[in-house]
């Protein structure tokens, strides 16, 4: 049964970066970059986003593959989540990313979906996805932040008109590992830290990342900073497969003589961007890795949370996940 046929669009499958960038310049906001299509095609089928031209990037070989470099690894934005999950070097040195990639969606989606597409995917607020004319869609209401709204999945922090959260399982990991996002347009290249790549509604309510319509994310660089650290990743979702995180936690620590020497930690599903828990890092750094430290970390993590009508459960959930990360990583 086919519910919706996608609207017509012009399809381009360039194999060279210059051609893709020229097409994006030409079409501007009417163009759509597509990688694995796992976010894109649903938008088209629902007829909520109707680009004139779809630029399928999967034919551009230079955007694929995992390379070891002097200061870590470089992952082409179009590398699939399955390749990320199975790659021996990622498993060995940056296991946090492999674990998170394996928790995305389902095996068939990971075989097609890309790391770049996963990081650049759009919000999963169903009001927005269903085509409600909300703030994020350019309107002047948030349908998820009303007394009757279904907002069990929505935000605890940083609400600014919109209350959607980051849906990406890999995004918090990229922030924790200090990844650098390499972005190219016909005008040149820029490199953005993962923590600045993701943006909240206060910066621009209509998009989730700094990517401009004519830019392509080419590479994700993971520096050696956290290679071989003790990692912890946990994602809580209603089902083990397909479902997005209600809350997730990702952390990297170096422990010296039972004391937390260095730490990087972030949560997904609680804010529009991965929530980098700097306050937790400051509290636990130099402390013993103990139940007491974990307790303090959990309490500090949720300070300032403002739950909506139906997502109060996320507060203790987040608190416990942070505790677990500190305790058992």
């Amino acid at each position, binding site marked *: *049964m*086919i*519910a919706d046929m996608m609207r017509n*669009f012009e399809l381009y499958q360039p194999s*060279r970066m210059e051609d893709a960038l020229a097409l994006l310049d030409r079409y501007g906001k009417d163009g759509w970059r597509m990688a694995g*299509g796992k976010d894109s*095609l649903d938008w088209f089928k629902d007829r909520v986003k109707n680009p004139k031209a779809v630029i*399928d990037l999967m034919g551009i070989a230079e955007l694929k593959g995992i390379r070891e470099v002097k200061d870590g690894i470089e992952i082409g934005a179009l590398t699939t989540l399955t390749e990320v999950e199975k790659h021996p070097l990622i498993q060995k040195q940056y296991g946090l990313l492999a674990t998170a990639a394996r928790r995305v969606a389902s*095996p068939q989606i990971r*075989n097609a979906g890309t790391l770049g597409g996963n990081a650049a995917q759009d919000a999963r607020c169903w009001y927005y996805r269903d085509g409600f004319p909300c703030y994020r869609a350019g309107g002047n209401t948030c349908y998820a932040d009303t007394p009757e709204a279904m907002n069990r999945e929505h935000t605890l922090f940083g609400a600014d008109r919109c209350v959607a959260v980051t849906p990406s399982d890999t995004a918090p990991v990229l922030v924790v590992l200090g990844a650098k996002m390499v972005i190219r347009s016909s005008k040149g290249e820029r490199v953005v830290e993962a923590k600045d790549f993701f943006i909240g509604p206060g910066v621009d309510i209509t998009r989730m990342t700094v990517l401009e319509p004519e830019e392509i994310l080419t590479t994700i660089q993971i520096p050696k900073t956290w290679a071989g650290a003790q990692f912890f990743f946990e994602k809580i979702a209603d089902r083990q497969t397909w479902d997005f995180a209600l809350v997730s936690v990702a952390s990297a620590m170096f422990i010296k003589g039972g004391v937390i020497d260095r730490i990087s930690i972030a949560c997904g599903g609680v804010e529009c961007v991965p929530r980098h828990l700097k306050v937790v890092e400051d509290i636990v750094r130099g402390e013993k890795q103990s139940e007491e430290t974990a307790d303090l970390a959990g309490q500090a993590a949720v300070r300032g949370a403002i739950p909506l009508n139906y997502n109060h459960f996320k507060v203790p959930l987040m608190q416990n996940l942070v505790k677990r990360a500190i305790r058992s990583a």
Partner: protein
Amino acid sequence: MFDQKELRRDPVPAEQAENRSMSALNPNISRRDFIKGVICSGATVAAAGYMLQGGQALAAASGTVERLVSLNVNGQVRRVDVLPNETLAMTLRYKLGLTGVKLSCDRAECGACTVLLDDMDFYSCSMLTHSVRNRKIITVEGLSSPSGKLHPVQQAFVDELGPQCGFCTPGQVLSAVALLKVNPKPTREEAALAMSGNLCRCGAYDHYLKAIMRVAGGV
């Protein structure tokens, strides 16, 4: 016969309109070229630009897609006319008659439409046919031998009384084949993870897992 006057009256999509203006520019443009232009999917606006400038073959330069494509399906090359916005499930099921490809959610959420591309499992409802032109496509119809002998996974599914209603079965079989290709001796947990992208409303999961373990164990 195409009559240019006639064409001008019809509401035409952008790429044809472009052809129209080109034929207006150049009265010598042949009918054959014109038809070629129509067969090409949209997106020839840019191409026409390049063509006028440099005479370069447009499709190659800008990557526009041709609608008539060759697909390698179940070991055969099939020629088929594919729209730019057509999913692989649509092409396989409704144009090539491969009804073993089931369409259920059409949203990458159930696994009924699972097919193999170069031996890996994918949701055919959520891929554009144009993006699999160079890949080896296998549907459940392509698993048994020409003599009708079932693939070992299919046979094991039968032996373990795997399916109940059978709707999810083609997808389940193909995911199992994909798993065993890269991991011929999976643990039960590995098999469960690999099969986790396939829903079964009848709840035959355990039977399917048993069937996979039967093939893996060579029982």
